[in-house]
């Protein structure tokens, strides 16, 4: 697939390189001549100097025949404008963008960016994964961000321990997808699955119910 990447920096450059290795045709637009020169040295003539938010520059980058645009600049406003301009002017089928601030991630969704990668969410969930015994890990937002995939570690003395899943009153819309025991054995959850000490529960949760789910699963006797 032919892909236009705007922003050839810390994210855009390695992304371009890995997409090329996967067999995609890639073109990078960046406003900084030095960044472009370094991309050209490493990856060939696949980059040019231009503003991400200029319709003309997007056109010269071949936006009209691209299968997707991926916006990776440091500036949220430029990422949004690049995606929207590519969509409006070149009917680009798929727009993908980084959003550095969480409130912008929400706005990008509403504004019709097809896939929004929230930098803050990513960093937070990765940091949380690194903390031993962290009780709630937000793994990833789902679809329109109204739901999320979460992992919750159950305490040893929790009120839910020893009960079956059918005995729990989960928040509306919550779906338990997988349970993993402290020994690393996975259990496919059904109504009769027993909840045991230190199980890790992976669930799909409506975003506004996640704290309720967490409270239910970690409540102590």
């Amino acid at each position: 697939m032919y892909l236009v990447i705007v922003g050839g920096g810390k994210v855009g450059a390695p992304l371009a390189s890995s997409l090329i290795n996967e067999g995609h045709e890639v073109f990078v637009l960046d406003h900084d001549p030095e960044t472009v020169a370094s991309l050209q040295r490493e990856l060939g003539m696949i980059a040019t100097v231009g503003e991400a938010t200029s319709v003309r520059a997007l056109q010269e980058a071949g936006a009209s025949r691209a299968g997707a645009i991926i916006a990776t600049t440091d500036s949220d406003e430029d990422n949004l404008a690049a995606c929207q301009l590519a969509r409006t002017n070149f009917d680009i089928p798929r727009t993908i963008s980084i959003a550095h601030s969480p409130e912008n991630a929400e706005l990008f969704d509403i504004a019709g960016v097809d896939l929004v990668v929230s930098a803050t969410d990513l960093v937070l969930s990765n940091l949380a994964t690194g903390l031993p015994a962290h009780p709630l890990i937000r793994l990833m937002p789902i679809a329109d961000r109204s739901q999320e995939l979460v992992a919750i570690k159950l305490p040893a003395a929790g009120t839910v321990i020893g009960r079956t899943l059918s005995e729990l009153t989960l928040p509306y819309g919550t779906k338990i997808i997988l349970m993993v025991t402290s020994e690393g054995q996975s259990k496919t959850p059904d109504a009769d699955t027993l909840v045991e000490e230190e199980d890790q529960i992976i669930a799909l949760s409506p975003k506004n119910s996640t704290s309720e789910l967490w409270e239910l699963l970690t409540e102590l006797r």
Partner: protein
Amino acid sequence: MNVIIVGAGNLGSALARKLSDLGHRITVIDKNPKAVSLLPRGRVNSGVMTVIHRDGSTGEAMIEAGIANADVFIAATGKDSLNGLAAQRAKTIFRVEEVMTAVKDEGARTLYDSLGITTINKASLASDQLVNLLAEEK
């Protein structure tokens, strides 16, 4: 009417002055503390014109500027994409009735037209198009 203007540069300040002359209440947001220099001195922070020093594209700054009661939101910084983002937040998140954005790149006009956001530039200010538009709504 209550008007929020983001950006106190040439365009934003000229708009603030003009709309204030017409009797509208103006709140200007500009993150640069020195950016008030182009605004009419006697009116700033006298009740008819308020200045807030924050990044005007953020929801927090908009709330502080009283966006819940704003009739008009105008994004008038020197950066098209920043104006576009601020204008879309005002329109889709805060549901401001009339949202305008300054656009230098003609190629971007179609985009904002399609979003129901009025595009303005220096020429529209000179032609009084904008002032007429607001006067009609009043």
